[in-house]
C-alpha cells in the first residue's frame, strides 16, 4: 500500500513538473517572438538545404531577427501569398518565371534571378562501368554500351525525370546524333516521341513505362537513385547537380546547351516538350531560381536585408557549396528597390521581363475534354 502511494505521488510530481516546464517554454517562446522581428520566407523545397544554412548565418549576424522558413512547392509557395493571403517577407521560387506570371503586378513588381540548377549524370567512380572513360563528350556513347545500366526518375511523378528525358532529346540535337533518344529510351522503354512542326519534339510518358531493367531503371524520385548508384547497382543516374553535390556523388557536367541551366539557351530548351500520363504538357526551360519581397510583406526592409544576404558573397558561397550555382552578379528585373541596385546586374528594361503567355509555366494543363481517370 505504502509503495503504491509513493508511485502515485511520484507520478503527480512528474506531471506537475512537465506542465510547468511546458508552460515556461511556451511563455518564453511568446516573449521571444515579441522581441525578435520575424522574416517569413516561403520557398521551394529544393531550396531548403541552402536556405537553412543562409538562415542560421543570417540570424547569427542579426540576433534580433528571426527567420522563419516554410518549405513547399514553388507554385504552392506563390499561392500562399496570392491566394491564401499570407504575409511573407521573402518568396524564393525554383522557377523564376512564376514571380512575373503569377505575382505581377499586385503582389510583386520585381525579382532577382540568383542561382541555377541543372541536370547532371551522376555515377560512382569506383563501381560504375567505364567511369574512368566518361566525359561530357562521350557520355551518351557510354550509356549505349552493353551492360551499362542507367536510370532516371519517373517523369510522371518527378520533374527531374521529365527533365532527364528532355536532356536526352536535346543531346540528339546538340551532338547531331539522331539515334541517342532512340537507342537509350525508345528501345528500352514504352516512352514515345513525335516530331512536331518547326523542329520541336513531344515526348509522351505512358503509365507503364516498361523499362528493360537490364539497361534502364525508372524509380519514383530521383533522390532514391542515389543509394543505388552508391551501392553500384546502377551505373549512371540523371540527377540535379544539387543532389549530386549534396550526396558527394561524382557526375558528368553536361554541356550548358542541354543541361537546362542557362537562360541564354531558353529558346533551344523549349524545342522539347513532354506530356505526362495525366495530360500535362511540360516545356523544356532553364532551372533558374528567383527571389523577391512580396508587396504585402510586413517588414519589407528586413525581407530586402535577407535577399541582399542571399545574393551577396556569403549567400553565393552557400549556394555554390550545395551545387546550386549562384548567378554572379544576380540578375534583377522589374522595378528594383534602390538597396539592391548595387548588387545586381539590371536586365535591360523591357516592358515585360518574360514573354511567357501561360499563367502557370511549370505545368501548363492542356486539359482535354474527355475526363480521364487519373492513372487508370
Amino acid at each position: 500500500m505504502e509503495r503504491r502511494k509513493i508511485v502515485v505521488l511520484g507520478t503527480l510530481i512528474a506531471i506537475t513538473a512537465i506542465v510547468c516546464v511546458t508552460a515556461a517554454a511556451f511563455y518564453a517562446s511568446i516573449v521571444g517572438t515579441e522581441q525578435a522581428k520575424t522574416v517569413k520566407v516561403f520557398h521551394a523545397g529544393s531550396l531548403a538545404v541552402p536556405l537553412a544554412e543562409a538562415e542560421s548565418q543570417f540570424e547569427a549576424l542579426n540576433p534580433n531577427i528571426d527567420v522563419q522558413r516554410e518549405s513547399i512547392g514553388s507554385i504552392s509557395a506563390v499561392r500562399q501569398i496570392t491566394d491564401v493571403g499570407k504575409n511573407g517577407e521573402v518568396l524564393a521560387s525554383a522557377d523564376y518565371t512564376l514571380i512575373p506570371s503569377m505575382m505581377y503586378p499586385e503582389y510583386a513588381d520585381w525579382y532577382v534571378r540568383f542561382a541555377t540548377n541543372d541536370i547532371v549524370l551522376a555515377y560512382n567512380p569506383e563501381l560504375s562501368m567505364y567511369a574512368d572513360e566518361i566525359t561530357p563528350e562521350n557520355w551518351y556513347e557510354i550509356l549505349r554500351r552493353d551492360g551499362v545500366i542507367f536510370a532516371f526518375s519517373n517523369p510522371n511523378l518527378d520533374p527531374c525525370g521529365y527533365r532527364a528525358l528532355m536532356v536526352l532529346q536535346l543531346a540528339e540535337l546538340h551532338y547531331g546524333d539522331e539515334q541517342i533518344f532512340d537507342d537509350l529510351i525508345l528501345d528500352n522503354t514504352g516512352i514515345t516521341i513525335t516530331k512536331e512542326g518547326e523542329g520541336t519534339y513531344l515526348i509522351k510518358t505512358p503509365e507503364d513505362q516498361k523499362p528493360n531493367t537490364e539497361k534502364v531503371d525508372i524509380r519514383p524520385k530521383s533522390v532514391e537513385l542515389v543509394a543505388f548508384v552508391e551501392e553500384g547497382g546502377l551505373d549512371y543516374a540523371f540527377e540535379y547537380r544539387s543532389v549530386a553535390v549534396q550526396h558527394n556523388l561524382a557526375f558528368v557536367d553536361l554541356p550548358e546547351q542541354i543541361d537546362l541551366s542557362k537562360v541564354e539557351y531558353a529558346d533551344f530548351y523549349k524545342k522539347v516538350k513532354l506530356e505526362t500520363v495525366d495530360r500535362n504538357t511540360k516545356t523544356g526551360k532553364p532551372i533558374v531560381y528567383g527571389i523577391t519581397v512580396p508587396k504585402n510583406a510586413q517588414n519589407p526592409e528586413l525581407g530586402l536585408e535577407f535577399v541582399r544576404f542571399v545574393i551577396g558573397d556569403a549567400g553565393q558561397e552557400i549556394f555554390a557549396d550545395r551545387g546550386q550555382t549562384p548567378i554572379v552578379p544576380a540578375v534583377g528585373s522589374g522595378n528594383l528597390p534602390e538597396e539592391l541596385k548595387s548588387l545586381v546586374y539590371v536586365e535591360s528594361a523591357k516592358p515585360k521581363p518574360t514573354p511567357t503567355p501561360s499563367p502557370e509555366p511549370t505545368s501548363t494543363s492542356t486539359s482535354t475534354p474527355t475526363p480521364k481517370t487519373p492513372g487508370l
Partner: protein
Amino acid sequence: MKLRSRLPGTEKLKREKIYVIFLFLGLVLVAFVFITLGNMLYRQTEDFPALIDAATNLVVLKAIGISISMAMASTLIAFFFGVPLAYFLARKDFPGKSIIEGIVDIPLMIPHVIAGIALYGVFMRYGVIGAPLKRLGIVITDAYLGIVIAMLFMCLPYLIDTARAGFKEVDPRLENVARSLGASHWRTFREITFPLAFPSILSGAILSWGRAISEFSAVLILAYHPISAPILIYEKFTSFGLAASRPISVLLISICLVIFILLRMLQKGRK
C-alpha cells in the same frame, strides 16, 4: 431437472458464460478488421466505374497477377526447404537449436525496409550472391526473381513455425509403431507423419502466401520492376491520391479474399 427444462437457453448461457465473454472480447478485433476493410469496400461502391476500369486495366491485372503468382512461387520454395527443416526442428534436440530457430524468426522482427536493404546488398550484381549469379547470366534485382526472393525472405517463418507446431502434434509413438511394423523411415514420414501434420502445413502455406502477397518494402527495394500490386497501389497513392489507388486495393483484396476462403474450405474439407 424441471428448472433446466423450463429455461434451457438461460441455463445454457450460464454454463457457457466464458465463451460469451470471450466472444465479445474477440469480436472487438474482428470488428476492427471488418470495419477497416468494409469501409474501404463500401466507399468504392460509390465509384463503381473506377473499379470496373481497374478490373479491365491490363497494367493493374498484370500487377495483381505478378503478386499472386510470385507469392505462390515463394511459398513453394519455402515449402520445399521449410518442411524438412520444420520436421527436423520438431523431432531433434541439439545444442544451438534455439539459435537456428531464432535465425528463422528474424524476418518476423526486422523492419521490412531493412530486409530489403540487406537483400539488395547481397543480391545486387556486385553482391555476395548476386555477383556469381550474374556471371551465370542470372539477374535478381528488378526482375521476377527479385520479387520471389524478397517475398521468400519475409514469408518463410510463417511456414516453418506453423509446420513445426504441426509435426510436434504428431505423436512420435505413431511413427514408432509404423517403423516397428517394418515401414522405412521415409515411408513413415510419407504415410503417417506428413499426412497427420498436413493441415498445419497447409495452414502455414496459406499464411506464408498471404504474407508474401502483402510484402511491400522489401520488394520495393529489391525489385521495383516488374511492378507488382502493392507497388502499383503505392505509386498511384503518392501521385494521384486515394481515389486512384483504392480501386486497385479493393480488387486485390477481393481476389485474395476469394482465394483465401477457398483454401480454408479445402483445408476443412480434408479434415
